[in-house]
Structures are given as structure tokens and as C-alpha cells.
């Protein structure tokens, strides 16, 4: 009998909240230094789980993942989470640093008056490349054509990766064809699919997480990915003393802007710690640290004085108004559209 009691105690012991904050975040989206500083300031522990795609995160949550205090979804995913009633509204009284944010990023369509979300960082999904190789081969680096056109791809066969994300890859194809990333016309989707299928034989892989490493090491010369990942690839290549450097640019046809926000999941056991984290990340210095270390775009005005001028001048991280006009945020699809897209994605993978 005692054995069973002990067993039950040990089993349930894991559920004790203690001073632990559970964060479900993108890969490589918060530097270790920032984590350490937060843990010191709140005298608590930050435990992270990672995802590399909004769809993956949403699916895991729908399938019963729970116990996350904080999640960092992109705009369209925030909308899904709000509508499916998975979020806790914010207690703005605990967030005095909200005033630091640039109003341009507040009150977005997916969360009017920011009842549930606080902007964290933004990235642009663009092209990262090995500067030396692209120059050698005489290839353009400011257009999606270099990923989709066989005439360019022929020189890059086996050296290109694209994101393993339905929405992102279709968005890139749609942009290249001149459509909006939120276009839901099935005929346009079919054109995008055919474009992708034509280019697929030249691509090495569909990759969402390890392409940074491949770029840095030199196995891959061109990658479709997030601006923050490309920034880190560039840093890594420099530190490793590679004979080449990694460049990245927003294609002129336009791209996807992903505004990631911090939200509180309703099954999180420590909303108090979650609020503290959000307030911590809204401090100018901490938010700037994020940008300086991982190269993400920054919606925080108080952070500007602390941001490395070289990064602030980088147009792929802080786009000019002219580029901003060509950027779009993804909107969520309805269930029928999701199904059609899913079938198209299967075709893309298999054919």
C-alpha cells in the first residue's frame, strides 16, 4: 500500500508548479543571456519547448498539449488561438512597459486593442545566400526567381533548401507570381503549385530547422528562411572564420512579414510569472538584446538607443517604408481552404 502511495506521490510530484515558467517558443528565438538575466531577476526557472512552424504549434495545442504559460505565435496563429478561446486576457496593470511599444505594431487586425497579445519581435521570410558563390555564378539575389526559375536553379542543383511550411512556401510562390500571400483563389494556388513542382527537382530539401547550419558550413548556398536565422548564420560563419560570408535580402516582389507576439495560454499554471516575463521583455534594454543577438526586427521604441547601429541600418531587419509596402502578414485560412492547401502540399511533397 505504501509503495503505491509513494508511486502516486512521485508521479504527481512532477506537476508541482514551483517557480517555473513554461515557454513555448520558436527555435533560436531567445538568447541564453536574456534567459539567464530573466531567471536571475525573478529568481525562477525558465523551461522552453520549441517549434519551427506555427502549424506545428497549433496542432500540438489542439491535440492536448498543455501547461505552457507563454507562447510566441505569429499574427495569424494568434487569431486562431483567440477564436478557439485558448488564451488568457492580459492584465495590463502588470505591464507598465507597454508604453515602450511603437504604436504602429499595436492594435493589429488579429487582436484589436491588444487584449491578449504583446508584440515580441518580427521577422521577414526571405532568401539567405552564400555571397561568394552567388557572385561566382552570377546569380541575382534580390528576387524569388533564383529559387523558382530552372535557368538559375540549374547552377544551384542540390544546394538550395526551402522552408518546410505550407503557408510560407506557397506565399513565396504567390508573391513571385504577383499575387497576394493571402490570395485564396484555387486557380492561383494551382499555378503556384506547378511553379513549385517545376523547381522541386533542383532543391536539396524542405527544411525548417537545420538550414542555418548547412548554410554556415557551406553545404547549402541558397536558403529560403527567416531573417533572424539568416542573421545568426552570418554571425556563425564569421566566427567560424569561413572563406565566405552569408548575405540575405528581401526579394523585390515582396515577402511575408511575421509579427510574433507573446500570449498567455489558459492552461498555464503561472500567469504571474508570465506577466513578469512580458514586462521584462518590454524593457528597452532586454528587447534590444534580442535584436542585437538574434537579428530580429524590433517593435519597441525604447529599445532603439540600445540597438547596434549596424543592425539598425540593415534593411532586411529594419525595412524601409518602401520595402514595408511590399510586405504582407499572413491571415488564417478557413477549414475548407486548409483542406485544399493540405492536399496541394501532399501533391507537392509526393510528385
Amino acid at each position, binding site marked *: 500500500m505504501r509503495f503505491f502511495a509513494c508511486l502516486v506521490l512521485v508521479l504527481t510530484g512532477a506537476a508541482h508548479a514551483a517557480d517555473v515558467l513554461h515557454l513555448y517558443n520558436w527555435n533560436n528565438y531567445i538568447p541564453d543571456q536574456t534567459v539567464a538575466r530573466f531567471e536571475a531577476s525573478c529568481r525562477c526557472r525558465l523551461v522552453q*519547448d520549441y517549434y519551427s512552424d506555427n502549424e506545428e504549434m497549433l496542432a500540438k495545442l489542439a491535440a492536448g498539449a498543455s501547461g505552457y504559460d507563454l507562447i510566441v505565435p505569429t499574427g495569424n496563429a494568434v487569431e486562431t488561438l483567440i477564436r478557439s478561446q485558448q488564451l488568457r486576457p492580459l492584465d495590463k496593470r502588470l505591464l507598465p512597459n507597454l508604453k515602450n511599444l511603437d504604436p504602429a505594431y499595436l492594435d493589429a487586425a488579429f487582436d484589436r486593442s491588444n487584449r491578449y497579445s504583446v508584440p515580441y519581435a518580427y521577422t521577414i521570410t526571405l532568401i539567405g545566400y552564400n555571397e561568394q558563390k552567388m557572385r561566382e555564378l552570377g546569380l541575382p539575389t534580390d528576387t524569388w526567381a533564383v529559387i523558382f526559375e530552372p535557368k538559375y536553379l540549374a547552377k544551384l542543383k542540390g544546394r538550395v533548401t526551402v522552408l518546410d511550411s505550407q503557408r510560407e512556401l506557397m506565399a513565396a510562390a504567390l508573391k513571385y507570381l504577383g499575387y497576394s500571400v493571402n490570395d485564396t483563389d484555387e486557380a492561383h494556388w494551382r499555378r503556384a503549385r506547378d511553379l513549385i513542382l517545376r523547381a522541386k527537382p533542383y532543391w536539396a530539401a524542405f527544411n525548417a530547422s537545420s538550414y542555418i547550419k548547412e548554410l554556415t558550413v557551406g553545404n547549402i548556398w541558397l536558403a529560403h528562411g527567416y531573417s533572424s536565422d539568416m542573421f545568426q548564420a552570418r554571425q556563425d560563419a564569421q566566427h567560424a572564420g569561413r572563406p565566405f560570408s552569408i548575405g540575405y535580402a528581401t526579394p523585390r516582389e515582396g515577402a511575408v512579414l511575421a509579427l510574433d507576439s507573446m500570449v498567455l495560454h489558459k492552461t498555464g499554471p503561472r500567469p504571474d510569472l508570465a506577466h513578469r516575463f512580458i514586462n521584462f521583455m518590454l524593457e528597452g534594454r532586454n528587447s534590444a538584446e534580442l535584436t542585437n543577438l538574434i537579428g530580429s526586427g524590433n517593435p519597441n521604441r525604447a529599445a532603439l538607443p540600445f540597438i547596434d547601429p549596424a543592425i539598425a541600418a540593415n534593411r532586411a531587419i529594419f525595412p524601409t517604408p518602401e520595402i514595408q509596402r511590399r510586405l504582407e502578414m499572413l491571415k488564417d485560412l478557413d477549414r475548407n481552404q486548409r483542406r485544399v492547401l493540405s492536399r496541394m502540399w501532399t501533391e507537392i511533397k509526393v510528385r
Partner: protein
Amino acid sequence: MRKPSWWLWAAALAVYAFLYLPLLIVVVYSFNDSRLNAEWVGFTFKWYAELFSDADMLLAARNSVLIALAASLVATVLGTMAGLAIHRYRLRILPILTFTPVAMPEILLGVSLLLFFNLVFRPWLGLELGLWSVIVAHITFCIGFVTIVVRVSLLGLDGSIFEAARDLGASPWQTFRLVTLPLILPAVVAGALMSFALSLDDFVITFFTAGVGVSTLPLQIYSMLKIAVTPEVNAVSTLLMAFTLSLIVLASRIHRGALRGRP
């Protein structure tokens, strides 16, 4: 008895080699002083050291053991009961119930349990997925194994013993406790050990019923395979293999026919 011809020996040895070489490579490279599993560089224990200082891995190991203990315990009890019931009372539904989870593709069980936990347990009982959902899932497919092993063991017993016990006035419980159980105990223990090993090694069903946050050793290995492969995977694989291997050898020692389904 004719001696088997040489080519038969050769073919059989080739198959043995095919079975063992890959595993040997995993074990050998766990001691390799190189991040890549390509060439032998030097002998080292550092991957094992890294393993034991990896908090995620240790937590996963703890979860795996807890789940396996709980699941094999309950599955052994329920499975033994099922084996006895089927043998004694010639039931028809129970055999199908116990055997089907074992026979069908694991993904179907995993997915249906995922649906079940999300549609029934979460809304009605407010329970989130966690250790317990994995334990329940493991019990479901382990019961079948124990049932089969116990049944086969019972088939090998001489029924007259039970008749004699009854004629001497023993109640069913006494018959079970003093006559049946001692006779089938090797099979029960073997079944328990096999359930433990199966639960420890299970991947597919755990994958769907764990929710995130609960990690077991196979799930850890899987995420390492998907994200960043280091020889730490070799190290944990070697240890896991050694452990389940000893369990299975133990099980076969205790009950000779456990593996072959013979009494």
C-alpha cells in the same frame, strides 16, 4: 539427421551479421571521439558523461521508468485475469479485445486514443494529457501480451489439478492462490518483464498520447534524430539496449517458452 549444407550456414550467418552489424556500429561509435559517425577517431566516455548531465534526458529516463513500472504492473494484473478468464470460461469477446490492440498498426491505437482523450477526458473530466494518458495507452497494448503468455502457460497445465483442488473443498480464490498462481508464476513474471520492456521502448503510441511536456526516452531520441544528431544518441541507445536486453534474457530464463509462445 542430415547436416545442413554449407551455403545454408553461410546464408544464415549473413542474416545474423545483417541483424547485428548495425547495432554494433551504434554501440562502437558511442565511444568514438568524434561528433560525426563517420570514422573512428579515438576512445572516449565523453558522450556518456554528456548524457548524464543532460537534464532533459534524465527527466525523460525517469518518465520512461515510471510509465513502464505503472503500465506493466496494471497490465500484468489485468492480463493475468484475462488469461485465466479466457482459459477457464471459454469467452469469445475478451480474446478479441485483448489481441486486437497487439495485432493492429500502432498508429491507429495512438490516434484513436488521442481523439478519445481530447473528446472525452478533457471536456468531461478536465484532465489534460500527461503521464497518466501514456500509462493508460501502454496498458492497453500490454494487456494482450501478458494474456497470450499466461494463456499459453495455462494450456500446458494438466486440468485435473484444479478438479482435485475443488474436490478437496478449495474456494476459487484458494485454488488460484495455492495451485494456479505458483504454476503460472514464471509466465506471469515473464509477461510483466516483457510489458516493462515494451513500454520502455514504445514510440508510436507514446508520440500521440504524451501531449508535449511529457518526454520519454524514445521521444527524446526521436527529437534528437530530427534536430541535431550527436553521439549522445549512440550512448543512450547503447544503455537502453543493454537494459532491455537483460530484461528479455531474464524473461526467457524465468520462462523458457515465453518467446516462442510455448508452455
